[in-house]
C-alpha cells in the first residue's frame, strides 16, 4: 500500500521525557512514555500511519492520545484477540485486518493488493526463518556469539528493508560457522520478560559479562510472533490463523496452559540452569507473570533472578550486584 514498515521500540535513552509524563501518568513503562514523547515533540512527522497492537492497556491508551496529538496521521489500535479457542477468532481477526487495511490505504494512497501481501508474507517468512536460525545458534553454541550481537542483528530487522536484512542474516550465519565455539564456564540462562520494551545494550551486555549465557530470550518478540505464515490462499486469513496458532508464550497473550507449566517447559527446552526475569519497570503483564513463574521454579529448585529495567538508566550497580550474586549462588558451593 505504498508504506514502509518501521518498528518503533520507544524513543531510547536519548529522548528526554518532559511532555509524556503529564499526558500519561506516573506508573508507566518507559516505552509508552518515550514513544508518546516522540509524538508530542513532533519527531514522528515523517510517519503517515501508526498501528498500535493491543498488547496491553497502556499501548492501547497511548493510541488514544496519538489520535489527538497527531490528527494528520492515521492511527489504529489493532485489536489482537485473546480468545484462542473460538471458531470466530480467525474470521474476526481477518475482518480486523480489513479495517486496518482501509486505514492504511488512506495513508499510503495505494490500494491493497493480495498478491503483494502474499509476496511480503514470503519475505517475512524468510526473515523469521533466518532469525530463528540465529537464536538456535545461540541456544546450541552459546559461546559463538554474544547476546548483544544476536540482539543487534535482530534489531536491525525492524529498521532495514527486509530485502537487505535477510542477506545480512545469511552472511552472519556463514561467518558464525567460521567462528570457534569457545565455551566459558558460564551459566545457561533463560531470559524472560523483555518482550516489549527493550533493555539498554549495557544491561544486555552485563548479563553475559557476569557469567551467564543467555541461551534463549524474549527480546524483540515482534520478529518472532508467528511461525511460518502460509502465503497461498487468502493471505489475510493465513495471517490470522498464524496469529492464533502462534506458539509464542509471553505475558501479553492469554496463557494456553498454566504459567507454571509453561516456564518449566521452556527451561527444559533451553536446557537452562537458571532463569533471569528482566521486566520493564511498570510493565504489569510481565510483572504478574513473574509471580506465577517463580512459584513453579521454586518448586523445582531452579534458580532465578528478577530484575527490572528502564529505557533510560545509566547506573547498573544494583543490577550488577544482583546478577553477580545470582551467578555466585550457582557457582560457589
Amino acid at each position, binding site marked *: 500500500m505504498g508504506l514502509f514498515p518501521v518498528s518503533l521500540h520507544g524513543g531510547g535513552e536519548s529522548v528526554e521525557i518532559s511532555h509524556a509524563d503529564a499526558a500519561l501518568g506516573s506508573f508507566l513503562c518507559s516505552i509508552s512514555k518515550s514513544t508518546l514523547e516522540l509524538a508530542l515533540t513532533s519527531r514522528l512527522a515523517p510517519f503517515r500511519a501508526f498501528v498500535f497492537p493491543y498488547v496491553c492497556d497502556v499501548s492501547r491508551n497511548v493510541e488514544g492520545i496519538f489520535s489527538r496529538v497527531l490528527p494528520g496521521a492515521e492511527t489504529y489500535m489493532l485489536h489482537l484477540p485473546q480468545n484462542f479457542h473460538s471458531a470466530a477468532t480467525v474470521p474476526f481477526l481477518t475482518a480486523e485486518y480489513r479495517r486496518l487495511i482501509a486505514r492504511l490505504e488512506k495513508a499510503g494512497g495505494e490500494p491493497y493488493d493480495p498478491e503483494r501481501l502474499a509476496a511480503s508474507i514470503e519475505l517475512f517468512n524468510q526473515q523469521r526463518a533466518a532469525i530463528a536460525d540465529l537464536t538456535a545458534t545461540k541456544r546450541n553454541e552459546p559461546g559463538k556469539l554474544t547476546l548483544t550481537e544476536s540482539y543487534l542483528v535482530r534489531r536491525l530487522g525492524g529498521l532495514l528493508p527486509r530485502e537487505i536484512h535477510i542477506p545480512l542474516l545469511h552472511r552472519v550465519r556463514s561467518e558464525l560457522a567460521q567462528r570457534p565455539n569457545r565455551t566459558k564456564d558460564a551459566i545457561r540462562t533463560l531470559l524472560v520478560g523483555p518482550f516489549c520494551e527493550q533493555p539498554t545494550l549495557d544491561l544486555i551486555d552485563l548479563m553475559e559479562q557476569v557469567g551467564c549465557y543467555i541461551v534463549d530470550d524474549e527480546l524483540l518478540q515482534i520478529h518472532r510472533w508467528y511461525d511460518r505464515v502460509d502465503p497461498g490462499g487468502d493471505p489475510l486469513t493465513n495471517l490470522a490463523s498464524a496469529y492464533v496458532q502462534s506458539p509464542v508464550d509471553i505475558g501479553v497473550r492469554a496463557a494456553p496452559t498454566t504459567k507454571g507449566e509453561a516456564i518449566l517447559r521452556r527451561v527444559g527446552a533451553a536446557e537452562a540452569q537458571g532463569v533471569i526475569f528482566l521486566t520493564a519497570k511498570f510493565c504489569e503483564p510481565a510483572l504478574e507473570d513473574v509471580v506465577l513463574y517463580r512459584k513453579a521454579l*521454586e518448586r523445582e529448585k531452579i*534458580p532465578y533472578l*528478577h530484575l*527490572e529495567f528502564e529505557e533510560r538508566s545509566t547506573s547498573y*550497580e*544494583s543490577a550488577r*550486584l*544482583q546478577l*553477580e*550474586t545470582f551467578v*555466585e*549462588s550457582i557457582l*560457589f*558451593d
Partner: protein
Amino acid sequence: MITCGLDLGSGTTKGVLLEDGQRILASAFAPTRGAPVERGRQILELMAEEANILPGDVEYLCTTGAARYAFLDRNLQVSDITASGRGAVFLAPGTRHVVDIGSQSSRAMSVSETGRVIRFKMNEKCAAGAGRFVDRCAKYLQVPLEEMAPKALASAQPKIISSVCAVLAETEIINNVAEEVPLPDILMGVFLSLAQRAYILMRYVGIQPEVALVGGLVKSEAMVRALERTGKISISAHPMGQHAAAIGAAMLGYSRVQKLSSRPGRLPAA
C-alpha cells in the same frame, strides 16, 4: 593463613582478618565518606596493627560492597549479598534466613548450611527502607543514632509511618511531631516501618528459622524488636553483624585459596 575481607560499603567500610577461615583476628570499621579506597587501606592498616602483623602478611584479600571494584589491591571480589550470607552463617551457624539492612539497601536471603545464597531479594524501587532513612530521622529529630534504640524501646503506642517515600515520610514525621506524638512512639514507628518493608522482602524469599539480622542496623535493638514484632518470629543479631559481609568475603577468600593451592601455579590476582 590470614585472609582479609573488606566490605567497602556506601555508608561504612568494614574489614576483618581471618585466620585459617575460622578465627577472627581483628576487625575494624569506619564511615566511608565517599573515599572507599582510602578508607579500605586505613582499615587494613588498623587491623594489621591490632593483629600485630604487617599488611603484607595478608595472603589473600577479598573485597565486597558497593566499591568492591574500586579497590585494586585485591585478589578477589564477591557481591555483598553472597558475602553477607556466608558471614551470617559464620556468626550464627543455624541461620537459614538473613536480613541485611545497610545504609542504602535492605536485602533478605535464604541460605544453605554453608551460607550459600539460595534466593534473595533487595529493595529497589524506593529508598524508604534502609539505614539512611534512620540516619535522616535521627538528624531531623535531633536524637543521636546510638540513643534512638533505647528511646524507641520505651514506646507504648508506636506511630507507624505510612508514606512509601523516604522524603515524604520525613514530612509525616514532622506532622507527628507537630501533633505532639511522643518521641519514643515516633522513633519506634521509624523502625517498625523499616521492618514492614524488610518483612515484605523476607516473605518474598520465604522465611525459615533461624533468622539473623546483619548489617549496620544490628546495632539497634529497636530494629531487632521491630522485626520480631512485625514477623512474629525471633531474630538473632550478632554484635559483629555489621561485619557479616566482611567476614563472608574473608571466608570466601580462604576457600578460594584452598581450591587454588590444591592446583599447581601461583595465586592470581582477580
